[in-house]
């Protein structure tokens, strides 16, 4: 038997990030404790290299490894998001890690391995690849959530995420096994509505993989009613990791969802559109309404990230509806790709603004007190004017205020929903954005209008890597908010080639 040739250039970004992860782990053993910051430098250099190689294979449009891995610009677009989010996580972590005595080497190594898992998911063209990528991502995060070993909350968060995560991946895998049973292949191109096997042939059975896989993915994007792990895990985990996992796994799951549901489950569109509509409405309402009642910033941002998954699902539903639209194949294809483009742009925006907001939360923390309750933000504008200003911009962007990147994302999502006739979703989305405005603006009011209670700590806008991360994310939020054309064109280009 002949082994097919292996094209390593197709997975260079993944290979580089994985090798740098191992390098960090090895160097960690030999380096002196006071020089641990150089590990962050190694990780950053590795991520820059991965960024460059991603750009190198940007234009390729093929599959590699016997069709297991798709090498297309759609995958590269998401890899860019993962590399950015990993780099920002590396930047925001050192302060928190040194305050809480967390070992830098193992932490960075797990962040990098988790990034590899997400990159594999984005470029997966086969159920096996999706599963491996998903588990690599999930197992790294189970470990990182429990990194504060002496803190019972962190251990509990880790355990909770582990149990529900393995439950979700068991459901996903069971769905995948039926997929294989119906089609006889695990390739994403293999799914057809009329099963040509004598093993399974009924209407219900062909929907079984769809339902089970949807539940599995819904856990990963934290859609209501599969969100129950989210607030607890986000609150208990170390804050930089919370930032990372509120972005990475969610983006990765959306990357897989768009590829699988548009290309593979194209014949089952009416079924999954119904499911996602329901999930989207529940997620938007629950996430936003419960976020209003939160006193802890970390929990509030956890619920707000649930709500954002709801907005993103609107885009997925619109893409599904578009493919069924009457009025010409060309038109429905345009609407479908526009809807998916809106999701990709929103994900890009969400990455910057969410990581930035969490970076601010980290920059306020102290060793004895995480200082993440709403009251700790009172009078922040006087103590740290720059941080307060940047936080305001980031919160406005999360809210979807015109002139920020968040607005561009929301605008295209709602536009897609309206042109494809999903008015209910658009109305619920806009109404819930108003509710969201309440709890985002409340933080701004606390920062600018309220006097702090109790003794005031003398502090200023200290220059640190966390501060760099805040500045960078805010700059991108504003830059792409004013001139989003570049990202939009990029997303449109990749999506058209993926759907073609």
């Amino acid at each position, binding site marked *: 038997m002949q082994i097919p040739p292996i094209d390593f250039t197709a997975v260079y970004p993944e290979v580089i990030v994985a090798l740098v992860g191992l390098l960090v782990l090895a160097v960690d053993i030999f380096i002196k404790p006071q020089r641990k910051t150089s590990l962050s430098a190694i990780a950053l250099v590795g991520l820059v290299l991965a960024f460059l190689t991603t750009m190198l294979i940007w234009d390729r449009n093929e599959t590699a490894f016997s069709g297991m891995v798709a090498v297309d610009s759609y995958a590269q677009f998401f890899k860019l998001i993962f590399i950015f989010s990993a780099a920002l996580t590396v930047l925001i972590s050192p302060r928190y890690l040194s305050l809480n005595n967390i070992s830098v080497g193992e932490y960075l190594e797990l962040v990098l391995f988790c990034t590899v898992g997400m990159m594999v998911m984005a470029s997966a063209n086969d159920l096996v690849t999706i599963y491996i990528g998903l588990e690599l991502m999930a197992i790294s995060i189970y470990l990182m959530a429990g990194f504060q070993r002496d803190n019972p909350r962190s*251990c509990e968060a880790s355990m909770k995420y582990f149990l529900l995560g393995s439950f979700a991946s068991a459901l996903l895998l069971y769905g995948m096994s039926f997929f294989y049973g119906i089609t006889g292949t695990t390739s994403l191109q293999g799914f057809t509505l009329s099963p040509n096997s004598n*093993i399974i042939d009924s209407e219900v059975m062909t929907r079984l993989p769809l339902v089970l896989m949807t539940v599995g993915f819904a856990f990963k994007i934290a859609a209501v009613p599969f969100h129950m792990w989210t607030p607890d895990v986000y609150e208990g985990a170390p804050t930089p990791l919370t930032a990372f996992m509120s972005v990475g796994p969610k983006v990765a799951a959306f990357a897989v969802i768009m590829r699988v549901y548009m290309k593979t489950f194209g014949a089952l569109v009416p079924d999954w559109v119904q499911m996602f509509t329901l999930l989207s409405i529940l997620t938007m309402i629950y996430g936003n309404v419960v976020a209003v009642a939160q006193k802890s910033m970390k929990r509030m941002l956890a619920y707000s990230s649930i709500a954002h998954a709801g907005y993103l699902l609107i885009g997925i539903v619109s893409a599904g509806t578009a493919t069924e639209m009457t009025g010409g194949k060309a038109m429905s294809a345009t609407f479908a790709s526009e809807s998916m483009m809106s999701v990709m742009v929103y994900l890009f925006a969400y990455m910057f603004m969410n990581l930035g907001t969490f970076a601010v939360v980290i920059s306020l923390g102290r060793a004895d007190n995480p200082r993440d309750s709403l009251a700790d933000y009172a009078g922040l504008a006087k103590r740290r004017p720059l941080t307060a200003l940047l936080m305001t911009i980031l919160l406005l962007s999360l809210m979807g205020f015109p002139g920020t990147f968040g607005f561009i994302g929301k605008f295209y999502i709602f536009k897609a929903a309206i042109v494809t006739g999903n008015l209910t979703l658009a109305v619920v989305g806009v109404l819930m954005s108003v509710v969201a405005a309440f709890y985002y603006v409340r933080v701004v009011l606390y920062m600018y209008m309220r006097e702090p209670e109790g003794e005031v700590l003398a502090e200023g806008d200290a220059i640190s890597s966390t501060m760099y991360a805040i500045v960078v994310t805010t700059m991108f939020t504003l830059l792409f908010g004013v001139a989003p054309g570049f990202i939009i064109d990029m997303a449109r280009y990749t999506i058209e080639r993926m759907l073609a």
Partner: protein
Amino acid sequence: MATASEYMVLSSVLFAVGFVGFTLRRNILVMFMSAELMLNSANLNLIAYSTEWGNPTGQTFALFVIAVAAAEAAVGLAILMLLFRARATVSAADWRRLKG
């Protein structure tokens, strides 16, 4: 020799046992075992279908799943040890720190 549909019945029973066990029991070890049972029911499906279709993809997938499940078990038990040292119990009902 059993047919694929008979294997499917067996795997559904295993899956149902795992599902019910996970949702009803509050002992972390038992919950963990139930999740493993669900993974194995999927494995059984994959292998049965693999024989039926006459291609080895399902068996390969099952091998991957077994490897991943082993890694997951190692991580899960490590986290359980961590929690046990802090709490001296393996019951999920005693988790009060986070609101739930």
